[in-house]
Each structure stands twice: as structure tokens, then as C-alpha cells.
């Protein structure tokens, strides 16, 4: 019996949406391990601008694209909670669409799965055929 994964996938997506949409606003805002290593040797002001010293982070250049969701916020939304949460939700949905869509397109349609005639709706609990 081969159970279908769809129910689990929907449940997992809801968890991911909650993490990216709500919990993300309470994440640490300190620089991560890479960033902080590159900032070693420099001093910073309250706005995170380099005020002195010498460190690899000084050579950092602008991002090529930026865009309305740059830095995990939605441009134009001033409320931090809403901005971060909404960008997270959009990111989860976009990542699922891109990855899920691409993997679905290149998946193997081998024997034993009967995908050619398989038109069953994505419902769980339908016992798989042998």
C-alpha cells in the first residue's frame, strides 16, 4: 500500500506558513555567523553603519536587484510584524510553487505508478493500488 503524501504536505505547508508568517518576527536580529565574522575588526553605530576599523564587510556592494521584498520585508508596509510576516508567507508560497512545480515537471513517470491514467483527486485515505 502506498499512501499519498498530499495530506502531509498540506499540513507541513501550514506549519511553514506559521513559522515564516508569525514566528519570524521574533527571530534574533543580530548578524548571523557569516556576517558577524566578516564584520570582525570594524565598529558600527546604532544603525549598523560602519564607523571605523577595517574588515571584509567594508567591501560589500549593493545587491543587483533588491526588489519589493528585499531584506524580508514588504516595501511600503511600515508595520514590522506585518511586513516581515507577509514577506515570509509570500516566500514560502513562492518557494513551494517553484520547487514543487519544477520537481513535479521533471518527475519520473515510471512503471508501477500508473500515472498516465491516474486522474484521481489529491485526497488522502484512498488506498493505493498494488
Amino acid at each position: 500500500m502506498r499512501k499519498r503524501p498530499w495530506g502531509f504536505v498540506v499540513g507541513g505547508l501550514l506549519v511553514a506558513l506559521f513559522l515564516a508568517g508569525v514566528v519570524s518576527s521574533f527571530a534574533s536580529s543580530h548578524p548571523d555567523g557569516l556576517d558577524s565574522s566578516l564584520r570582525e575588526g570594524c565598529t558600527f553605530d546604532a544603525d549598523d553603519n560602519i564607523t571605523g576599523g577595517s574588515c571584509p564587510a567594508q567591501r560589500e556592494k549593493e545587491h543587483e536587484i533588491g526588489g519589493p521584498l528585499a531584506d524580508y520585508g514588504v516595501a511600503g508596509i511600515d508595520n514590522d510584524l506585518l511586513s516581515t510576516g507577509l514577506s515570509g508567507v509570500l516566500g514560502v508560497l513562492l518557494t513551494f510553487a517553484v520547487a514543487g512545480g519544477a520537481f513535479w515537471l521533471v518527475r519520473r513517470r515510471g512503471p508501477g505508478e500508473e500515472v498516465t491514467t491516474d486522474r484521481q483527486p489529491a485526497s488522502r485515505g484512498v488506498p493505493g493500488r498494488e
Partner: protein
Amino acid sequence: METLAMHISNGIIDGPVAAVFAAVALAAMAFCVLRGRRDLDDRLAPMAGLVAAFIFAVQMLNFPIFTAGVSGHLLGGALAAMLVGPWIGALCVAVVLVVQALVFGDGGVAMLGLNVTNMAVLGTAAAYLLIALLLRVLPRTPAGLGVTAFVSALVSVLVASMGFVFQYWLGGTTDLGGNLGSLAGTMAVAHVLIGIGEGVITATTVVTVAKVRPDLVYALRGLRSAPASAVPAVGGAR
């Protein structure tokens, strides 16, 4: 909220080295597509989409790492390798990095090859080698599965961070005056601590999935006695 740059930004590594690693990453991803297609059936494809989306979400959750002013976040290579296998797993991490670079301004587009090489290729490869080894020697219990996830995740983060140090040695834009060792040391200490967080998240997630749906954990395929469940593992189905 402040800027949240999590990956290598533009200007940190010089152009030629970034271009070389773009080629390396592209070749590795092409190989993963070819090799991974064998695993990728109707059940794994949606699961792989979920794994990518889940990694994106958890990467947003920076956690403190007990050294002042530094945080860490999931990289995801070990988690992906355990749930969907090394080939599709590496592709999952790569998709996350591409979305982050193109849409979220995180990690320079020109630096994408460097980031993919470190986190998707090196991180996932290191994790999977350890997973394959540990699942053979450890007891087939939830504890054994959890320890496998924890150790492989920790090591994969350290390996990925050393990938960056190597790239910086090749093409770092700031002359460290022969002081690469201190960058390596700072990176190693931070990433061992981050690796502990990565290990906890990975082990918790994998053990949970193994309890709910052991048939959806790639690493458990072909193992006769699936942990924490009476459901027989799908016998080596590929």
C-alpha cells in the same frame, strides 16, 4: 526590522572566483537533476516542494548562539538529505538560495554559485555521507535517527562554513594580511554553535516526520524496521 543578509553579499569575493563557482554549482545541480530523477516519483515531488518551502521558512528564524551579538539560522542541507535524499535535497536548498537571491535581495546574484556550492553542494554532501554511515551503525530507534540527524546537521554546517573560508582564500576582496586563520577560527567557532542549533532543529523535524509518516523519510527507505512505528518501511522502493 534591520537588514537580514544571511548569505554571501556582492563584493565580498571577487568576480572571477565567483564565476568559477557559478560553473561548479551549475554542473553539480545538473548532475543532481540527472541522478535525482531516479528518486523523484509522484510521492517525492510534492514532498520535495514542501522541504524547500520549510527550509525557506526556518532560515528566517535566526536564533541566538550564546556569543554576544551573533545569531545563526538553519542551512537545511542535512534536513533535506534525510527527508528527500542527497540529490533532490541539494536541489531543494539551491531553489531556496535562488529565490532568496532573486526575490529577497539576500546573497548577491553574482555570488549565487558560491552560496549554492557551500550550502547546497558541500553541506548536503557532508550530511549525506554521515547519514549513510550513522544509520548503518546506530540502532534503528527514534534515538538513533535523532542522533544521526543531529550529528550530520552539525558537521554539514561546519563544512559549509569552511567552504566559504576556502573561497575567501581564493578570492576574498579584503587583504587579511595572511590572517586567514583568524577568519577561519571565527567562522568555525560561530558555526559549531550554529551547528548545534541546526542539529536540534533537524533532529526534531526528522524524528517528528518519522513518527507521523515514516514512509516519507528518504533515509529510512530500505531499512527493515522503521523507528517509532509499526508501519513497515516501503521496501527499498525507488
